[in-house]
C-alpha cells in the first residue's frame, strides 16, 4: 500500500514536464508544424530558470527566466521555419544540438562546473499545502505538497488548452490553418501569424515545464537534463491525435511508469533498467494504438 502511494506521489510531478511540453506541442501540431524543438525548449528553460533562481535567489525570477529562455528558442525556431523557410525537421535537430552545446558551454562559463550544478542559492518553486485535501488519508498524501505549477497545470492549463483549441475562434482558425494554410490566407487571416503564435505558445508552456523539471522536481541542473522528454511528448501528441484530454491521460500513465522506476530502485533493481521504463512504455503505447487502428480498418472493410 505504501509502495503504491509512493509511486503515485512521484508520478504526478514526473508527468508535468512531459504534459506541458505535449500541450504546447498540440498547438503546433494543430497548425501543421512538425515541431521537434520541444526537447531544446525544455532543456533551455531548465537551465535558464536555474540561472535566474541562482542570481536573484528567488523562484519567481527563476520561472521568468525559464519562460524567457524557452521563448527565445521558439523565436529562433519561428525565424528559421517561417521567415527563412527551412525544413522543420532540420531546424529542430539543429536547434536541439545547439541548445545541448550551449547549456553545457554556459554551465562551464558561468559557474565553472561540469556535469551538474547544485547550490544553496538556487531557490526551488514553493510547494503548496491544500487545506482540506491534505487531511484525507490516502489521497491527501498523494496530491498534497507538490510544487504549485502542478496544480495550475492540472486544473487550469489543461481545461484552458481544450477550450482554446476546440471552443474559440482562434482555435478554429488554428485547426483550419493546419488543414490548409491557403484557405486561411484566402479569407484574410494570416496563416503565418497563426503559426507564429502557436510556436510561441508552445515555447511558453515548455518554459514552465522545463522550470518545473529543474526547480520543481529537483533543485539542480544537470547536462542534458531533459533526457528525451521532448521526444516522448511528441510521441504522445501523435498517439493522441491532438486531443488535450487524451494527452492528459497518457501523460499521467507515463508519469506512473517514471514514478514506478524511481520506486523500484529502492527494491534493488538496477536503476539503468528502471530508467528504461518510460521509453518502453512509449513503444507499448504505439503498438497498442496501431493495433486498434488496424482493427478499425478491418471493421470498415467488413
Amino acid at each position, binding site marked *: 500500500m505504501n509502495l503504491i502511494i509512493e509511486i503515485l506521489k512521484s508520478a504526478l510531478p514526473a508527468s508535468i514536464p512531459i504534459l506541458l511540453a505535449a500541450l504546447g506541442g498540440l498547438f503546433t501540431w494543430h497548425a501543421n508544424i512538425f515541431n521537434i524543438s520541444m526537447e531544446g525548449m525544455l532543456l533551455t528553460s531548465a537551465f535558464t530558470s536555474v540561472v535566474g533562481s541562482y542570481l536573484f535567489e528567488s523562484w519567481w525570477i527563476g520561472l521568468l527566466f525559464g519562460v524567457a529562455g524557452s521563448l527565445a528558442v521558439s523565436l529562433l525556431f519561428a525565424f*528559421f521555419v517561417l521567415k*527563412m*523557410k*527551412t*525544413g522543420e*525537421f*532540420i*531546424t529542430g*535537430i*539543429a*536547434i536541439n*544540438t*545547439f541548445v*545541448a*552545446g*550551449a547549456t*553545457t*558551454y554556459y554551465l*562551464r*562559463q558561468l559557474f565553472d562546473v561540469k556535469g551538474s550544478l547544485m547550490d544553496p542559492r538556487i531557490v526551488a518553486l514553493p510547494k503548496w499545502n491544500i487545506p482540506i485535501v491534505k487531511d484525507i488519508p490516502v489521497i491527501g498524501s498523494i496530491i498534497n505538497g507538490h510544487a504549485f505549477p502542478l496544480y495550475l497545470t492540472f486544473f487550469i492549463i489543461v481545461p484552458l488548452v481544450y477550450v482554446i483549441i476546440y471552443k474559440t475562434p482562434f482555435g478554429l482558425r488554428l485547426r483550419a490553418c493546419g488543414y490548409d494554410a491557403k484557405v486561411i490566407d484566402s479569407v484574410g487571416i494570416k496563416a503565418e501569424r497563426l503559426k507564429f503564435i502557436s510556436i510561441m505558445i508552445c515555447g511558453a508552456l515548455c518554459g514552465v515545464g522545463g522550470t518545473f523539471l529543474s526547480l520543481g522536481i529537483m533543485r539542480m541542473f544537470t547536462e542534458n537534463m531533459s*533526457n*528525451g522528454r521532448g*521526444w516522448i511528448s*511528441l*510521441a504522445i501528441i*501523435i498517439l493522441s491525435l491532438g486531443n488535450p484530454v487524451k494527452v492528459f491521460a497518457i501523460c499521467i500513465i507515463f508519469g506512473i511508469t517514471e514514478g514506478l522506476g524511481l520506486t523500484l530502485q529502492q527494491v534493488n533493481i*538496477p536503476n*539503468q*533498467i528502471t*530508467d*528504461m521504463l518510460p*521509453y*518502453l512504455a*512509449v*513503444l507499448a503505447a*504505439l*503498438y497498442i494504438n*496501431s*493495433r486498434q*487502428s*488496424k482493427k478499425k480498418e478491418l471493421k470498415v472493410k467488413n
Partner: protein
Amino acid sequence: MKIRKEVTVALAIVTAIVIGMIMLFSQGYSSMESYASILKYSLSTAIGRANTINRFVFLLIAGSSAAMALGAGASNLGQFGQLLMGAMTSTLIGIYVNLPSVVLIPLMIIGGVAAGALWAAIAAAGRKLFGMNEFIITLMLNFIADYFVRYLISTPLKDPGSQWPASRVVSENGILPAIGLIDSVVFLMIAVYIAAVYFVRKSRMGYEFRVMGYNSLFARVGGCDTNKNFFRAMLLSGALAGLLGTMMIVGATQQHRVISGLGENFANDGLMLSIVAGNNIGGVFVYAILFAILQSGATGMQLDTGVPSEFTTMLIAITVLSVVAFRSYSGIFIDKVIAWKKTKSLEVEK
C-alpha cells in the same frame, strides 16, 4: 537567374564563422586567436592531422549511415542505439572468443554490423508489421540501448579493475594496428564509404532509394517495391552504424572497450551531416572535413584560449542552420528580385 550552389554554401559558412566570432567576442575572448588555435591543433602538427583524419572518417560513416536511410525517405534517427549495440556485440566477441586476429577481427565486424542492422530491423519491422512510426521507435530504441549498455557495463560485464562503468578490454587479437599515426580502420572505412557512394549513385537499388527519397508515391507507381526497399534502407543504415560502433572498439587509437558515453556525439553529428548535405551521401564528404577540423581542434582551443570545447558544438549547429537557411532563402530571394524587376519595367512602360 541562378545562384551557384557552391556560392550559397560558402556564404553560409562564412556567415556562421562570423556569428561564432561575435559570440566569442561578446564573451571577452579573442576570436581570431581561438580560430587560429583550432586550425593549429587540427592541421599543423602531425598528431593533429592524424587526429583530424581519424575523426573525419568516423564522421563520414556516421553521416553515410544517416544519409542512407534519410535519403530513401526512412526516418532512421537511431544511429546512436545501433552504434552502441554494434560496439557492445563486437566487444563481447572480442573478450570471450579466443581466435587468431585473421578470424577474430572479421568475426567482430560481422557481429557488430549484424547487431546494428538488427537493432534497426526492430524499428523497420514495427513500421512494416504494425504501422508504427519508425521515427519514434528508433528514437526510443536509442534510450533503451543506452540504458541497457550502461547496465551491462556497470553490473554484469564490468571490468573489476576499473573505477568507472566500463567493460573489459578486448583481447589483443581483436585490435587492428595503426599504420604510422593513422588507424588502419580508416582505410577500411573509406573503402566502405566509396562502396556506399557507388551503391547509391550507380546501382539500381540505390537509384530506387533516391527516387523514394524524393517521392515515395512516384517510386511505388513507377514499379519499385517501396516496402521492401524501406526495410533494406533501414538495415543498411543500421549496418553502417553498427560498423561505426565496431570500429570504435577495433581501431588502434580507440579504447578497445565500451565505456559510458561511447559514441554519444557521433550519432547526432551523423544526422546533422546528412541533413546539411541534403541527405546525399556524396555531399557528406565536404561537411565531414569541416566538422572534423572543428572538433579535433576544440580541445587545443580550450588549452590555448580557455574557450570551452563545447563552443564547437554550437558552431557546428550554427553552421548547419546557416547553410540550410541560405539554401532555402536563396530561392525566395531570387523570386523577390525577379518580381521587383518586373514591377520596375512595368512602371517604365507607363
